[in-house]
């Protein structure tokens, strides 16, 4: 191996960021999504395992009231729309609009968290009443943790964008922030079905 001094591959002209799988952020995020999707799948699997082994499931007549959960599902599905716009605007380098839409996303998330409190109250069971109560609280709790985390992420990112000198790589952050929110939305749908509709089926 003798390096030949004249042969060089010059990279000075390359861009300093790229969207989607061109960015390291995307890869990190996909890893986190894979891990958390596995956790959700295991939690749902545990629900089914416990349900098939119990004499009676749910153990009492009282089923979770689907009103708040359904309302929340509608809000969550609707929230994909501002996220999509924020993402599009970021990918078109439209800074002001992307930032503003991020605030809309944040508003949706906050409304959702408030309604989540009512959801917990309408479950109709306590976590320590039976294994059924435990796994239902676990499912809803796990999803809530993701919701709160992503809301905080969005808030911090919005604050950075508004208060610090703007770096163009923040466009990637705004775009990936929306992708993570899609995961929060998508993972909710099976959990919603399991908590509210499986016992009625």
């Amino acid at each position, binding site marked *: 191996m003798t390096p030949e001094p004249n042969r060089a591959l010059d990279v000075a002209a390359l861009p300093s960021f790229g969207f989607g799988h061109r960015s390291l952020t995307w890869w990190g995020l996909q890893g986190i999504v894979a891990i958390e999707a596995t956790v959700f799948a295991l939690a749902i699997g*545990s629900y089914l395992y416990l349900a098939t082994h119990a004499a009676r499931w749910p153990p009492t007549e009282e089923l979770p009231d689907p009103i708040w959960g359904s309302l929340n599902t509608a809000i969550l599905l609707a929230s994909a729309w501002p996220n999509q716009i924020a993402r599009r605007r970021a990918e078109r380098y439209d800074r002001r609009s992307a930032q503003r839409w991020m605030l809309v996303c944040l508003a949706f998330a906050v409304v959702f968290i408030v309604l989540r409190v009512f959801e917990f109250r309408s479950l109709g069971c306590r976590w320590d009443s039976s294994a059924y109560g435990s796994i239902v609280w676990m499912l809803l709790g796990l999803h809530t943790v993701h919701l709160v985390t992503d809301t905080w992420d969005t808030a911090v990112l919005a604050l950075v964008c508004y208060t610090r000198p703007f770096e163009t790589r923040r466009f990637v952050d705004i775009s990936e922030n929306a992708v993570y929110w899609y995961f929060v939305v998508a993972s909710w749908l099976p959990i919603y079905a399991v908590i509210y509709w499986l016992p009625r089926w």
Partner: protein
Amino acid sequence: MKALASTPVRRNSVPPTPEDRALLDATWRDPPGFRGWCMAVNHKSIGRRFIITAFVFFAAGGLLAALMRWQLAVPDNHVLGPDTYNQIFTLHGSTMMFLFAVPVMQAVAVYLLPLTLGARAIAFPRMNAYAYWVYLFGGLLLFAGFVFDAGPDAGWFAYVPLSGPEYSPGKRVDYWAQLITFTELSALLEAIIIVTTVMKLRAPGMTLTRMPLYAWAMLVTACMVIFAMPAVMFASTALLLDRLVGTEFFNPGEDGEPLLWQHLFWFFGHPEVYLIFIPGLGFMSAIIATFARRPIVGYVPMVLSLVATGFLAFGLWVHHMFATTLPDAGKDIFTISSMLIAIPSAVQIFCWIATLWLGRLEFRTPLLFVLAFFVILVLGGLTGLQLASVPLDLQLHDTYFVVAHLHYVLIGGAVFPLFGACYYWFPKFTGRLLDERAGRWHFWLWFVGFNLSFFPMHLLGLDGMPRRVYTYPAEMGWGTLNLLATAGAVLLAAGVLVFGGNVLRSLRHGERAGPDPWRGGTLEWATESPPSPANFDALWVVHSAYPLWDPQPMARVSGLATSHREVLVTTPGVARPDTRVIFPDPSPWPLAAALATAVLFVGSIYTPWAVVWAMIPVAATLTAWFWPSARETAEHLDVERAP
């Protein structure tokens, strides 16, 4: 806010000038002093710490094993009481599995992967530092618990109902459950870091089919961690909740199901065996190629076997549960899949044998450790096939036969290659070779000591000696074999002492290694030993799997910033240069965030409210970590350029 004056951007030329080098060193070095030590993010600083910590835990786990062997050396012994013995075997298993075997493999990768891939740094360097601190605090928690008589005592797999609130009152099992949370959090973060590094930071031209087999092994391992570890975190969280707030996941009286624990645990636990030993396979491929002086035979079958092993490892977990009341048809399926995984393992072994057969062998210490793998792992694999058969498993379940089997697999499959890797890469880490004569002593003490210690356990198991008993009566006739096993443990301990002495002595007085003492073929040998803070003065462009053995000279990358922490990102498949991104500066916040995380985890052993109030410092430190300083922003603005 006013922006700082920006730094003039300097870029490297080819060939690199002394000025390039000086700037790169200044840019990539961790800050000096204790403060700098707390802020370090360079993958080599973190990797070195990680490796040393993992070996300290290995020594601690080994001491616990030695205590057990002392206790079992003769019948009716009373060196340890039953309660202490329970804590010690639990701590030994938990330490070796959660604080040594998985972390040490990731630790070596943290140091080595960027070098073998020809990169400036590891992906997400601050997260890497955070993962190290979290791991360290988890380990300290476990041993602190032991010192204060809260050492877990329900076995390393903490089966319910024994580990549940009814049969294990007190806080012992909670310490175990939080140890899991700490170490698995760390391992999961490292897995993300490893996948991203392998997919995005490879040298230009290093296509997936030219990537070192070691990098493939770590990629497969990291993917397995991502899908396996969540199961044990979920399970240990449910256990903690059962114990702390009265949930009923595992309580059969309230529709809970103890077997759910075993499913969740082994859904993680079986892949874990493979994710301990697949990095070992990566070491094997690196060491065998170098000491046989030729490329590994069958690159594609090797890679496919690694990937196949990764998938099949997820279909075996029930073979740990053959002694439970599962349907027989289910057990048959798992017997078949347990037999099936022998195929990819055999393909790899045959490829290595072919490589050794066709190569010109140099019998240096690393190769000796690798050759021992063939004997020991194959024996462990064969007993594994026996245990995969349900009737035999029912007979041997929970006996010393299983103890023998698992040590043959894990020590033969992971620890022997790991020691080989230590001798092989020590010169890269330190600039000096380990002493060859002491290395041979270490090897023979371990090879003889290992077999002397663990082979008799097969016979003890066939004779019916159960696992986890603190003593046994003389009339059982198990005394002689146990004494032999203890004698073997003495040799193993002596081997570790020789190794430790060799390391300490060679750090000062070892023969100087130079960049490439073994004439290796992969990129880590194309830089000095130990590598400079930026790894390479100018990145290499590669054209084959063993670029240093190519007849044609390698080209180099120019135009990457030397004044800023700029890293070249390439495309995932063919490693075409794609973007140049700025990596973060050293920061105290990963350590602060890890401390806050530790407060949350330890607090939640005692009160569920810790999850709420300790969330505040965690969120605050993570936010401070992310928050860009004026200097960082100015640096980013210096070099930014939109696509």
